[in-house]
């Protein structure tokens, strides 16, 4: 096999997993750079930056960022982060690499479909980035793309012409790639498990990937449908989302009968489950890492599985909590609120079980473990504000304020990213045969942990003071001028946090240079990816987390260890 076949158009799940990982790494640093530029602009709106001018000659004439450039960066930041980081690493990256290994399969069920799914995703990313260079620049309608703004073309503002079309096409491609992945994950989990690997013996990571795949299967189909309808409104003159009588910028639009709320329903029917797509695999990783480094079984394994499935199902019934103030029927708000708070319960259950897992353990505070414990901390912090936002009476004030921005960054952004870091530190030895530097890793962790609290907690205060989100400038309102110092603090915290992420990059690259091979099972873990590779398909004798079993020879028993005689 030549280079192209082995590394580029590979059908090997391990290579594909790494491809997803690298794609997401590029996306993550891009998205982060955009956020730094945004924060910079918010605190130094007048500053002339040569780099902005070079990158966006039209968006930043003279180096001063225009409002439309800010909104374009914001849209691209949100889109890149949600789709190409959160949806890509945990599922496409780790899932592809480790699902077959953990269930003892030879590869994914449909390797060629798997390759196609990756290349569709990669193409979608390129398409998205191309929005920056077309006429009018990237779209300014946010990652939620609400019509009419997103549906009427460039009359409504810069970036809403070609840039917006490109955005829709990119999202449709991404959805198609995710659907292929989902079919593969579901089939692999159901059909290719090794002998003895009953569903309830699977590691919780596999449960996470499996339930995420099921959610993706339903959610992305709806997003494609919504995207198609939006594209028709934009390009072919239909009126799915455009009501009668629109006059934008003195130009009559001439459509009739459509409903802007219809888009919101379709979008959030996808969008809420999407946040679980982002976090469920991470929850699986956290459970595994906590158990391994506490040398204890996962507390309440079955409750954890039940909570995952419950979240997966109820996740489809709560989309309306994004629409409390949208003009939707006020009675449905109450129903959505009740359902939303109900779905908070399994998340709380998981948190209790994580605490139960470390309770009574023997905690080895490796870098992976630090990220996992940090995850529990930020998950609690972000989850509690979710309870506020799930209540329509409070959302009356908080909707579309910085409190929301603080909330979703904590629970969706930071928590999911912490899980990815935990997974990377934990699995890197298996993926590359090299250990990551623990000291660098710990410095990276502590700086990031403190950094994210310093960025995102103050956002909550700004939100309580009423600061609307998606503002490119805070100088027009008296009450916002009072928040200047607060924002300045966040901006500098963002600079700091972004800077320390290069430690991570450095750590990855440095480890590849080192000549010391990682041991086969460096964490003394129980799951199959750490088993000695052999040509025979593995046979599984026990559940995934047999740590510190009384009377056992060592403090862990691998799933494929036949019985407990010494070797």
């Amino acid at each position: 096999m030549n280079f192209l076949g082995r590394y580029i158009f590979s059908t090997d799940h391990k290579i594909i997993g790494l491809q997803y990982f690298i794609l997401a790494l590029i996306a993550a640093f891009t998205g982060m750079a955009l956020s730094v530029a945004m924060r910079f602009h918010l605190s130094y709106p007048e500053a002339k930056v040569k780099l902005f001018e070079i990158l966006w000659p039209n968006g930043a004439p003279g180096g001063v960022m225009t409002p439309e450039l800010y909104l374009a960066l914001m849209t691209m930041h949100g889109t890149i982060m949600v789709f190409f980081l959160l949806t890509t690493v945990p599922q496409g990256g780790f899932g592809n690499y480790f699902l077959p290994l953990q269930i003892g399969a030879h590869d994914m069920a449909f390797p060629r479909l798997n390759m196609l799914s990756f290349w569709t995703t990669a193409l979608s990313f390129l398409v998205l980035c191309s929005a920056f260079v077309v006429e009018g620049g990237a779209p300014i309608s946010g990652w939620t793309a609400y019509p009419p703004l997103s549906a009427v073309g460039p009359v409504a503002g810069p970036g809403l012409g070609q840039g917006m079309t490109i955005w829709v096409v990119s999202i449709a491609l991404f959805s198609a790639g995710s659907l292929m992945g989902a079919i593969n994950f579901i089939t692999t989990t159901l059909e290719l498990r090794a002998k003895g690997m009953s569903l309830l013996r699977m590691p919780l990571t596999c449960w996470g990937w499996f339930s995420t795949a099921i959610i993706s299967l339903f959610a992305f189909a709806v997003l494609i449908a919504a995207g198609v309808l939006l594209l028709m409104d934009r390009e072919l003159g239909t009126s799915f989302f455009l009501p009668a009588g629109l006059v934008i910028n003195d130009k009559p639009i001439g459509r009739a009968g459509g409903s802007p709320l219809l888009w919101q329903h379709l979008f959030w029917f996808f969008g809420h489950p999407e946040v679980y797509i982002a976090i469920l695999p991470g929850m699986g990783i956290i459970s595994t890492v906590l158990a391994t480094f506490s040398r204890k079984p996962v507390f309440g394994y079955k409750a954890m599985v039940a909570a995952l499935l419950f979240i997966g199902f109820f996740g489809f019934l709560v989309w309306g909590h994004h629409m409390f103030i949208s003009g939707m029927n006020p009675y449905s708000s109450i129903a959505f609120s009740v359902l939303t708070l109900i779905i908070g319960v399994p998340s709380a259950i998981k948190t209790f079980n994580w605490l139960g897992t470390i309770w009574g353990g023997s905690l080895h505070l490796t870098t992976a473990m630090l990220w996992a414990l940090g995850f529990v901390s930020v998950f609690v912090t972000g989850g509690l504000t979710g309870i506020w936002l799930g209540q329509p009476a409070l959302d009356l004030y908080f909707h579309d304020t910085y409190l929301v921005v603080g909330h979703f960054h904590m629970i969706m952004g930071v928590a999911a990213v912490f899980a990815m870091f935990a997974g990377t530190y934990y699995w890197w030895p298996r993926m590359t045969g090299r250990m990551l530097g623990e000291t660098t890793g710990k410095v990276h962790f502590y700086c990031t942990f403190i950094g994210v609290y310093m960025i995102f907690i103050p956002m909550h205060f700004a939100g309580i003071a009423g600061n609307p989100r998606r503002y490119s400038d805070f100088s027009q309102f008296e009450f916002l001028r009072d928040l200047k110092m607060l924002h300045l603090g966040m901006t500098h915290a963002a600079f700091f946090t972004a800077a320390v992420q290069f430690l991570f990059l450095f750590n990855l690259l440095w480890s590849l240079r080192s000549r010391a091979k990682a041991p086969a099972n460096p964490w003394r873990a129980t799951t199959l990816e750490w088993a000695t590779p052999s040509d025979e398909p593995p046979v599984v004798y026990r559940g995934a987390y047999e740590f510190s079993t009384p009377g056992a020879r060592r403090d862990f028993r691998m799933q494929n260890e036949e019985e407990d005689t010494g070797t």
Partner: protein
Amino acid sequence: MLLAIVIWGVTGVVTAGFATKRWWFPAPINTHAAAFDSYFSANLIFSGIVFLAAQLALGWLIWRHRNRGQQAVHSDGNNRMELLWTSLTAILFLGAAIGSARMWSDVHLSTFSTTPMRIEASGKQFAWNFRYPGADGKFGKTDARLANDAAGNPAGILPDDPAGKDDIVNAALRIPAGRPVQLILRSNDVLHNFFVRELRVKQDLVPGLDIPLHILADKPGEYEIACSELCGLGHHQMRSVMIVLPQPDFDSWLGKQAAK
């Protein structure tokens, strides 16, 4: 160990940040806003307790069970504990849902005992217009295509509709203190959102829909209206003010406008 200390430290700073209320809500100007504040306080206290308990417990567990060569306890879980914390959180969360449903109904599902004054609030990229029906109490029909600020018809009132002759259109929202007002929110271009912090309410303006919003302000003063739904590149400057006047001042202002 360091981690436990860092978690406790962060927890302390976050708690202190919320407790000092340096950046906080503006003072309420009606009973709904006051009720909102106390309901939020209850939420804050409740989540504060959970926050502290969870973070302190996390730090404590890390501290207490850090590896010092001890053997971990083998435990697969405990069904009674699962049941306990599941039902406990379920009760608390559902309590919150019910608690907030009451307040929500007060805003959106109740009616005033007296008939409210009707004002149309419309948004367009990136300005606000507030229209009063004038002496006849009726709004004239509008067509957005006719809207023209320069020609003195920002709302696009049809010239041949007699009901529109006495309509008053203003860029600021003036309302009498203590009197119920029904805003009719409309937009003819994109989504906007009517948000006055002191009222503790916000509501989207949706093209194609006339959305009623009941407000009542007791305290005279000037309050900023901030568009809170992304509406384009000027979203951040879509500002107006709500001026609450004592009834006599309001009446004389309205009289002067009508005379114009």
